[in-house]
């Protein structure tokens, strides 16, 4: 036993898989201790806020201001005019503005704007451009004008008696605040989702829930598969025929279709996290049954089983002590695969809107479902779905790697 464990932890594949999985698992345990906020709290008032640190505008305005003699123009120009806009400007200038391509340097935003100001005209002859494209250039021009306007921002307060605006402060373009002075700020490492929830916190919570679904599904599928496989393989005869008939029936009907039908018939309100795990477990045991059965058939004719029979042991005892221990490594491997496929099944099911329907838990599949439903892939909010995809991939990858590593330890023929 000790030796086997040592061998297992000497398999690089298993160790890599184990480390990734342990890291994910530990994160789901430790992160909620550090960040105690409710993972489903709707912090952002709006959809899909970009990842980054959000500082309170009011605090920034009211806080101490420092004047820094730095060039702020280039920075704000760069942030306000996108690379795509620059390409378009270059295209317009070379086609209709009569500027040579060699004179345009996209790195030098100020130079490009100067060229633009000098050459762009709304009324210029622009053959081959659609009306909408023409309008786009008009809008771009206005935008550039706005950026170039370098006047101070005036802060005004309403006089409570007269209702007039009284100027209280002006903010020049070279005035800065120290972020440490800003009392209210919030960092969203992975932005917010469509409900305004912090994606990172939600992701950690969802990973935990998905692992639970996987674990429940894995345990149920492995137990059913093991039980039926042992009985079917050891007893043989009519019992074997009957169990294999049922197993084959379940194998022939695609388990995912079955999963959808059961999930649907259970009903939207009854479908909790645990129930989805149970349903997935109930539809994915066939593979374990078949493989355990074939292993048992090859084991039941071994001499040590015959000896045990001759020693007068009951069938129960033979199955538990003479067959099950020889299957243990195999069952552990099957269990690991079942967890992984359980998590994937949950994600698939949730993507179809048939996953856990509770509003008090997030799962990886539900996060994907929400991101798709609110068109995150279309509006470029990658943070709402990409980290979820990566997490699902990492879980499946690490579990499969552990499985392969175990396979190589227990099956010497596969060793490199």
């Amino acid at each position, binding site marked *: 036993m000790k030796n086997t464990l040592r061998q297992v932890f000497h398999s690089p594949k298993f160790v890599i898989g184990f480390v990734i999985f342990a890291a994910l698992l530990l994160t789901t345990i430790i992160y909620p201790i550090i960040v105690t906020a409710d993972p489903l709290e709707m912090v952002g008032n709006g959809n899909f806020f970009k990842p980054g640190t959000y500082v309170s505008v009011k605090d920034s305005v009211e806080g101490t201001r420092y004047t820094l003699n730095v060039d702020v123009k280039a920075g704000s120009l760069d942030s306000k005019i996108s690379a795509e806009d620059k390409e378009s400007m270059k295209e317009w200038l070379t086609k209709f503005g009569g500027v040579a391509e060699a004179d345009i340097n996209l790195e030098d935003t100020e130079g490009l704007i100067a060229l633009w100001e000098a050459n762009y005209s709304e009324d210029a002859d622009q053959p081959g451009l659609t009306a909408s494209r023409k309008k786009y250039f008009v809008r771009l021009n206005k935008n550039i004008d706005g950026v170039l306007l370098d006047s101070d921002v005036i802060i005004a307060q309403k006089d409570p008696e007269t209702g007039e605006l009284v100027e209280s402060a002006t903010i020049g373009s070279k005035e800065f605040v120290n972020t440490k002075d800003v009392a209210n700020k919030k960092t969203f490492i992975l932005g917010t989702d469509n409900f305004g929830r912090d994606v990172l916190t939600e992701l950690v919570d969802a990973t935990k829930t998905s692992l639970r679904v996987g674990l429940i599904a894995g345990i149920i599928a492995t137990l059913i598969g093991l039980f039926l496989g042992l009985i079917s393989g050891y007893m043989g005869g009519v019992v074997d025929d009957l169990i294999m008939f049922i197993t084959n029936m379940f194998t022939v009907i695609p388990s995912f279709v079955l999963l959808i039908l059961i999930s649907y018939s259970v009903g939207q309100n009854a479908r909790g996290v645990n129930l989805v795990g149970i349903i997935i477990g109930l539809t994915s045991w066939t593979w374990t049954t078949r493989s355990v059965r074939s292993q048992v058939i090859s084991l039941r004719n071994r*001499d*040590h089983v*015959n000896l*045990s*029979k001759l*020693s*007068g042991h009951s*069938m129960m005892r033979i199955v538990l*002590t003479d067959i099950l221990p*020889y299957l243990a490594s195999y069952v552990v491997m099957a269990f690991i695969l079942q967890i992984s496929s359980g998590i994937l099944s949950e994600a698939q099911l949730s993507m179809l809107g048939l996953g856990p329907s509770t509003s008090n838990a997030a799962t990886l599949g539900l996060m994907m479902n929400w991101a798709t439903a609110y068109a995150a892939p279309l509006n470029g909010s990658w943070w709402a779905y990409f980290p979820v995809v990566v997490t699902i991939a990492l879980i499946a990858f690490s579990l499969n790697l552990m499985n392969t590593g175990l396979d190589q330890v227990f099956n010497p023929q596969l060793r490199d």
Partner: protein
Amino acid sequence: MSEKRAQCLTGKGVTKVFGLGDKKTVAVDHVDFDFREGEIISIVGESGSGKTTLSKMLLGLISVSEGEVMFQGKPRDISTNQKKKEYWKGIQAIFQDPFSSYNTFNKIDSVLLDCINMRGGKSLPYDQKFEMMREACSFVNLEFKELTNKYPFELSGGQMQRLMIARIFLLKPKILLADEPTSMIDACSRATILDMLLKLRDEINMTIIFITHDIGLAYYISDSVYIMEHGKFVEHGKAEDVILHPKATYTQRLINDVPKIYEEWDLSTV
């Protein structure tokens, strides 16, 4: 001499058929036998002749397709688990491969304790059980103190096979079915093990059914010999009669196949 002894295990038309229809294989084909108490009977045949299938039928591990087996003069009844358990008190076995005969997850103690429990010694105090195990081990020249809390795979093949005999010593069955117990053992251990089997036979007046492909060995230890070819007994009788004056061509071939020291081996008959 054998006629005077009591009937122990007899069979009439015992047959085992595997498969159905076109794929039918007759492993054991209507064999009759009459094993007497206290005898050593050898069943000799080459690989695939049905020796092991017959031995499993005799043990009751697989069912008999046709024919009848009589145990101590009465028809054998192993229809229920309880009756099987009772039958196995009378017949025990040693298998060919000592390395696969033990459950690698069980300690040696539990192997021997099972035998004591089977003989109805479940309620005995541990001291007494320990004494029985020690005695059984010393019978086969093993030191129980060194074996306790060890696993079978920590022993050598010869030691494992001797432990098997210790098991039989504790169980004291009427019949011992030894299915090529020495074929996986080196020549020195082989003699020791055969010696122990003979000693055990004398001690508890046990019938030994010795299954082997080694006709020389059969001649050396047995009282009577059954020669098996393609599931049938082609010849049987007293060991001296069968081996020194073989009638069946198959028996002659088997005898010729034994390599002899200082003599050229005639490979043309193989």
